[in-house]
């Protein structure tokens, strides 16, 4: 009759130790591998996060330059062209006012040209508290998409008198895609950040 009772022998003990050792090695390897993979991804993502925020800060500065009455016509036009390059084609910008309840969407160039032509003596536009409300997420088509919120403080003066001011909370969609281009005979992989529509989520005095 077969004896099914488990007898603990020295040989069994050695086998158990070996098994435990192998399992430990496998667990450690898989854990460290997973960690390094996660780290590489997070480094990559943090890089494009920063890049996208830089582009938004650039846009905020461009808008300030375009709106400023100290900016020459030629400079404003050049800056408009640079600002346009930050956006995906067909993007729109929503505009609100504390005096009107409606929100109007403008094509980019029209928005910039209206901003340049505002009938004030001095215009100051400042963007602040720029942060992600929706982190960049990789879609199946290889494009990262996220949403950044900014606060825009707008102040307009006639003479020395402040005649209008508001603060607008705006949401900006961001698209980031890895692209390749040949530059001076070399293949260059680059991250292309494009801004999408700018929506108004709140306007206050």
């Amino acid at each position, binding site marked *: 009759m077969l004896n099914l009772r488990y007898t603990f022998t020295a040989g069994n003990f050695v086998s158990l130790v070996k098994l435990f050792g192998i399992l430990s090695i496998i667990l450690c390897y898989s854990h460290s591998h997973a960690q390094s993979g996660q780290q590489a991804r997070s480094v990559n993502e943090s890089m494009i996060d920063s890049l996208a925020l830089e582009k938004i800060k650039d846009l905020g500065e*461009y808008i300030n330059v375009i709106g400023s009455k100290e900016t020459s016509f030629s400079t404003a036009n050049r800056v408009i062209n640079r600002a346009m390059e930050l956006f995906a084609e067909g993007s729109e910008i929503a505009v609100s006012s504390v005096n009107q309840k409606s929100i109007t969407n403008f094509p980019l160039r029209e928005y910039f040209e209206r901003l340049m032509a505002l009938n004030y003596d001095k215009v100051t536009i400042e963007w602040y508290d720029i942060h992600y409300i929706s982190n960049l997420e990789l879609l199946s088509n290889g494009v990262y998409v996220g949403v950044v919120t900014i606060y825009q403080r707008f102040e307009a003066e006639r003479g020395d008198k402040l005649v209008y001011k508001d603060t607008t909370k705006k949401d900006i969609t961001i698209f980031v895609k890895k692209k390749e281009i040949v530059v001076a005979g070399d293949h260059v992989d680059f991250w292309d950040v494009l801004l999408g529509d700018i929506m108004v989520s709140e306007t206050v005095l």
Partner: protein
Amino acid sequence: MQTNFIPMRYRLFLNPTPLLLALLITMLGCKSQQNVVKSKDGKLSVDKETVIRDLNNIIDPESELTNEEKTALLKAIKDHGFQDAQVDSLIIEAENALYATAQNTTATEYEEPADATVEDEKDPLVELEDLLTDQFKALANPMPAVDSEDIISETLNYFESNDSPVLIILQKLDGKTFYDRPTTIEKYLYYLKDLKRESHQIEEVNLNTNDKINKLILASY
């Protein structure tokens, strides 16, 4: 002055103590008698031939004497005070020779820093990078008296064209290089001017055969 350069025949007269002189004359014996003579008025002196030979030795550019030795020897001869036209003429010639040597030495010494400068001279590419860095900084931090447009025009002259590509490295990770969207040098310069942004570090400057920049690589880290 280091008197050990001066031959004994002249050193004797630097501090002519009679006792020492007498002792030395005795010790010098026959050999020294060829150089040291007694003049008509009874004073001890070095003979004219020896002085002339020594002066010619000073004048001779291929002499084994060093400049210091020559200078010391000439001083000793002059201090000795010969009253002789030929010696006086040779002294002048010796002085001129030493002066010319000193001038050459000075010229060489003067040139040395220039040589050192050549050694320290920067690589032209590094100089170009420094210049570009300065121009970029000048655009980002404009001075009231300086026209940014002039800086841009001046900087563009270093490039093959206004559309020469500018690549900005975002990060190097696992052997891969990640760039921002490529731009052109003209756009980059206006970017610095319009937004007053701190410029990126210059990573690489590529020149064409005419030494014009045809690709500029910057780094944002």
